[in-house]
């Protein structure tokens, strides 16, 4: 039963409809507070509490050097990383959910139209030719958008409003930018630039700073909010283009809106932390398994679940091993068994 069928019943309240997402948000809030307590730099919980009380009191009540030390650790290093992990997890999961609904295909991930391949190429290109962090971020973002623009352009060449042609355009664009990335890796200095590119492609949160998070938080939240608002239309699209059009939905416009925002926030995740795979594919499945296929509930729930997932994974990456491990690698190692488990549980539906 879809949400469209449900619409003939009295509409549940906003809070009631999203009770799962709200509940999980409380867990997320608790997890983020706990994450602030753990790290390589051991600080007793009492000191952390004391720091925030001193912060509230304008720095009073704590030794100035200790206050400064904890300010750097908690607000400049740990907090931006925690916020970045949640934002990236939420962005990738919500864009993955939206893409799976839009393309009516559970194997779709945010990278379908080439945004991750394009952004990876853009970052690598800037690492080799500009060697400036801001240039790397801007280039990653622009080439992410260019790659999706290319996929849309290829689809437009056929003058067909077909999802299949769009997917084809995405495959071509992804292939092209993957090749260009290989080319950049070939010419990169193996002593210096190539390791930097490889690290970037593994996905990492170890160097996220407060400034980047501050700049990107608004567009990321705006994108996720826009996808949330589009969710009810995605429910209609799931009935097919003809039905949706008959119900007064502008199919083309909805597709453009969803693709635009999903692309934008996916590209911004690469800008922030490099390439982190699997979240956009796995989390929508887990979320669907838990709360069902209604996109109005699924999209926000996926976002919160994605945030929680990457937050936990990053805690593992930064605390569990003797050395820091790229978060993208840990995401894959943990995400794949979860994906297999969910597939096993839902195999009857897939058969």
């Amino acid at each position, binding site marked *: 039963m879809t949400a469209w069928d449900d619409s003939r019943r009295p509409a549940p309240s906003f809070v009631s409809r999203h009770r799962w997402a709200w509940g999980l948000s409380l867990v997320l809030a608790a997890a983020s507070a706990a994450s602030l307590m753990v790290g390589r730099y051991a600080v007793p919980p009492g000191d952390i509490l004391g720091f925030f009380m001193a912060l509230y009191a304008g720095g009073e009540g704590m030794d100035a050097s200790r206050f400064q030390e904890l300010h750097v650790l908690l607000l400049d290093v740990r907090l931006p990383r925690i916020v970045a992990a949640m934002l990236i997890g939420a962005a990738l999961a919500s864009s993955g959910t939206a893409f799976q609904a839009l393309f009516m295909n559970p194997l779709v991930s945010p990278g379908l139209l080439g945004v991750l391949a394009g952004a990876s190429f853009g970052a690598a290109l800037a690492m080799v030719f500009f*060697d400036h962090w801001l240039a790397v971020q801007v280039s990653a973002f622009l080439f992410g958008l260019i790659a999706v623009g290319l996929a849309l352009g290829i689809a437009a060449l056929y003058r067909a409003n077909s999802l299949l042609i769009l997917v084809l355009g995405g495959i071509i664009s992804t292939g092209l930018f993957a090749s260009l990335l290989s080319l950049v890796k070939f*010419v990169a200095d*193996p*002593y*210096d630039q190539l390791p930097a590119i490889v*690290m970037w492609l593994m996905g*990492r949160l170890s160097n996220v*700073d407060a400034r980047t998070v501050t700049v990107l938080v608004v567009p990321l939240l705006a994108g996720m909010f826009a996808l949330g608002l589009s969710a009810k239309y995605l429910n209609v699209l799931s009935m097919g283009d003809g039905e949706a059009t008959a119900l007064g939905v502008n199919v083309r416009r909805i597709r453009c809106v969803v693709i635009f925002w999903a692309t934008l926030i996916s590209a911004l995740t690469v800008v922030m932390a490099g390439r982190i795979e699997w979240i956009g594919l796995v989390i929508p499945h887990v979320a669907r398994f838990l709360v069902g296929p209604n996109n109005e509930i699924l999209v926000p729930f996926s976002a919160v679940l994605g945030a929680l997932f990457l937050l936990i994974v990053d805690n593992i990456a930064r605390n569990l091993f003797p050395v820091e491990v790229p978060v993208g690698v840990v995401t894959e190692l943990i995400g794949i068994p979860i994906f297999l488990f969910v597939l096993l549980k839902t195999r009857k539906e897939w058969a």
Partner: protein
Amino acid sequence: MTVSLCLLASLPGVEWCACPSAAQAQSTRIVRDAAGRAVAVPVPVARVATLGPVPVLNSFILALGKGEAIVNGLPLFARSPRHKYQTIFAPTLAERPVIQGPGREPDLEVLLTLRPDVVLTMDRGMAESLERKGFAVLVLAWRNPEDVAATMLLLGTVFDREREARDYLDYTGRLLARVGDAVADVPDSRRPTVLFCSLKTMTQPHLIADWWIRQAGGISVTENGRHLESVLFSMEHVLKWNPDILIVSAPGEIDQVYRDTRMRTVKAVVNRQVYSIPAGAHPWGYRTVEQPLTVLWAFALMHPDKAGGLNVKAEMKTFYGRFFQYSLTDAQVEDMLSGIP
């Protein structure tokens, strides 16, 4: 390659052959490379090709004063300011053809045209592949400081520069001993903690750095009995380690450190003790033939009060003049010490 008569040489792992090879009617000698393979190389070796990590392979040859014997140019990735001293030490490198693609695969036709007497590589698979095509190939490898000495001895034999190779080892031994003596009585509490890193990758990229920091009388914050070549770390690690001295991999990263507010409480930043690793034929922080100078430079940085008669700049001129056969100018000394992008 068939060899009929071999005489054992004084060096372990080296056998001499006074006979011509069947194929080339040229004297050959059998040497044992770092992979433990017995390889017949011509005598004398006048033409050598380097494949793979060309700059570091070249640096060994340059240190034996045989730069003119290198028949290939620098690959694309090494044609950058970072490796400019390669062509300063051996100007002929600028005109030599490139023999490997961006993926380090050899261009066999160019290699055949160059007719090298011996090819040097660090890739055993590539060595065996080239050997099947008729090239004499030596695999070189170094992970520990003593491996550098073994490589110098091997190449000294191959190039008939055994005296120079032993001179290099003597010099290195004496220099390390002088530094070792100077820091021997320094208690741990007075040894500075040091982080050598690349900010681009947020890694301590080379295990050898733990060794040269220790030799120079410091405590490497990444030395924890690890076997991993590189250590990935986060900003939180830097705060936890709180190093007295921070050595970055390029000069541009010094300013980056000072501007990064997350590092503003780190002792190295507070005390303005952030430096870029010097670079000559190769960056000094890596495994390189210039490693004795790395130790000396780091020692002077960490214990300026104990440097006494050890003068880094004067020693650099001696080192490059004696082994690379190149007289450094004062400007070049400063340039090397400032690090190269």
